[in-house]
C-alpha cells in the first residue's frame, strides 16, 4: 500500500490524492445502490433511481476530466523536476 512506503515526499502529493478520489468516487456512488434505489425526488416525472444514475454519467465525466488535468500537470511537474536534477 502507498501508505507503507517510506519514500520521497513526491510519491503522494495532494494532486495525486485528488486524482485518486476523483477516480474512486464513481465506484462508491454507483456501488452503493441503496443510496439511490428510490422513486423520490422525481425530476420531470423521472424516478430518482434513473435520473440520479444519468447524473453520474455526467459527474464521472467531470471527475475524470479533473483527474486528467491534474495528471497532466503532475506529469509536467515531474518531467521538469527530473530534468533539473
Amino acid at each position, binding site marked *: 500500500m502507498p501508505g507503507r512506503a517510506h519514500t520521497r515526499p513526491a510519491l503522494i502529493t495532494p494532486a495525486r490524492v485528488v486524482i485518486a478520489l476523483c477516480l474512486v468516487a464513481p465506484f462508491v456512488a454507483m456501488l452503493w445502490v441503496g443510496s439511490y434505489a428510490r422513486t423520490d425526488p422525481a425530476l420531470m416525472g423521472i424516478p430518482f433511481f434513473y435520473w440520479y444514475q*444519468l447524473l453520474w*454519467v455526467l459527474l464521472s465525466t467531470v471527475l*475524470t476530466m479533473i483527474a486528467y488535468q491534474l495528471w497532466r500537470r503532475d506529469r509536467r511537474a515531474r*518531467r521538469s523536476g527530473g530534468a533539473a536534477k
Partner: protein
Amino acid sequence: MAGTAMTATFLAVLAGASLLAVTARRLRPNDRLPSLEGWALADRSLGPLWTWVLLGGTIFTAYTFTAVPGLAYGNGAPAFFAVPYTVLVCPLVFVLLARLWTVARRHGYITVADFVRGRYGSAPLALVVALTGILATMPYLALQLLGIRAVLTAGGMYPRGATGDLMMVALFAGLAVATYRHGLRAPTVISALKAVAVFVSLTAVTWLVLVRLGGPGAVFEGAAQRLGSPALLLSPAHQPAYATLALGSALALLMYPHVLTAGFASDGSRTLRKTAVALPAWTGLLALFGFLGIAALAVGVRAPEGAAEAAVPMLVDRLMPGPLAGLVFGAITVGALVPAAVMSIAAATSFVRNVYVEYVHPTATPKRQVRVAKLVSLTAKVGAVAFVFGLRDQDAVNLQLLGGVWILQIFPAVAVGLYTRWLHPRALLAGWGVGMVAGTFLVVRDGFSPIVPLGTDAGPLEIYVGLVALLLNLTVAVAGSVALERLRVPRGADLTDLPPRLTVRRRPETGANNP
C-alpha cells in the same frame, strides 16, 4: 412491414459502411513491411477521436444495444445495471488500460498474454490467459450476429427463409474481406459511421418518443402501470446483485481481448486517458436505449414470448417515420460489424502470438504471422456464422454469460500484475483453475443464472457469480503465493521494466530519469 423509405435508408447506411471499409487502407497509412502490429493494432496510430469511436464502438456492441432495452422491457430496473457498469469502465480505462498500454508499447506486446508472458516469465500462464480470451470472445462474436438478426426480424427488415440468412452472410463476408485486407483499420473507419449513426438516430428517436408520449413522466407512469409499480424500482433484495453485476462486468470488460486490442491501437497512454473522459457519452446512449425499453412498455408493444429484445425495434417500427427507422436499424447493424471485426482480429492475434508462434512455429516471420492471423480471423467469423445457424440463440447467450465469468479469471494475473509481481505464476494458475471451475459450476447449476444466492442469517444474498469466482481465485492465488514463496519455488524472470513491488519508488513514466 418495411416501407420503401425505411429500406432505402437502411441500405444507404450499409452502403456507407462498405464504402468506408474500402477506404480503410488510407487511415494513417505507412509503408512499413507487413507486421502484426500494423494489421491488428493499426500501427498503434489512433489519436483521441479515433480511439474514442473505436473503443466506444467496440465496448458498446450491438448486442448491448438490443439486450439492455430488452431487459428493461422485460424486467424493468435491474436492466439499468449497465449504466453503473459502463460508468465504472471509465476510471478503469484511465488507470489500468493506460498503464497496460505503456508497458505494451515499450516492449512491443500486442496481446495481453504477451504482457503476462513477459511479466511472470511463465509460458503456461500466458497460454491460459490467451485461451481464456479466445474462449470468452467467440460466443460474444456470435451474439453480434444474433443481435442483428433479432433487430432486423423485429423491424420487419429480415426477409424470411434463406434470403435473410444469405443477406446476413453476404454482409458478414464483406466485413470479413475488409478485415482480412486492412486489419483493424477496417472496423476503425466503420466505427466513425457507427458513432454518427447511433448518436443521431437515438437522439432523434428519444426526442420523438418523448413528444409522442408526452414527456418522461408519462413514459414512466405508463410503464409502471403495465409492469406493476415495484418493477421500475430495485427492491433491497436485488441491490447486491445489481452492484456486483456492475462491478464484475466492468472488471471483466477490460480483460476482453477485443477491448484491449482497441485500446492498444491508440497512439499513447495520454490519448487513452483523454478518451476515458469522453467515454461516458456512450453510457448516456446506452441509458437512452434502456429508456426506450421502458417506453416500449408504456406504449404497450407486445414482444413475442421470450423475445423481449424485439420490443424496441417494434417500437421504432411503429412510432418512427420510415427514414428514421431505417437509420436506427442501419445503425444497429453497422454497430454489430465493428465489435465483430475487432473480436475476430483480437482472437486471431491471440492465437498467433500466444499459441502459433509460441508452440507451433517459433521462427515465423512477421509476414507469415500476419498471414496466419488473417486466416484465423476468417475462421473465427465463419465459426460465428456456423454457430448462429447451428445452435439455438439461447446457447450463445448462455455461453456469453459463461464467457464473462471466465474472462474475469485472468484479472489477477493481468491487473494485479501491472502493479506487483508478488503473486506467484503457479499460484495464479491454480487460482485461475479454481475460478474457472467454480464459476462454471455455479452458473450451470442454477440453469445459467448470472447470480448466485449466498446463504446468510438475514436470508440469501444474491451476488454475481463472476465476482464470487474471482474472490476464490484471488484467495487461492494469495495463499498459493505465500506457500510457494516459503518453499522457495523459483519463478520466471521479469522482462518488463515495471517495478516488481508496489512499495518501490516509481520511476517517472516519462523516462526522464532513464539514462
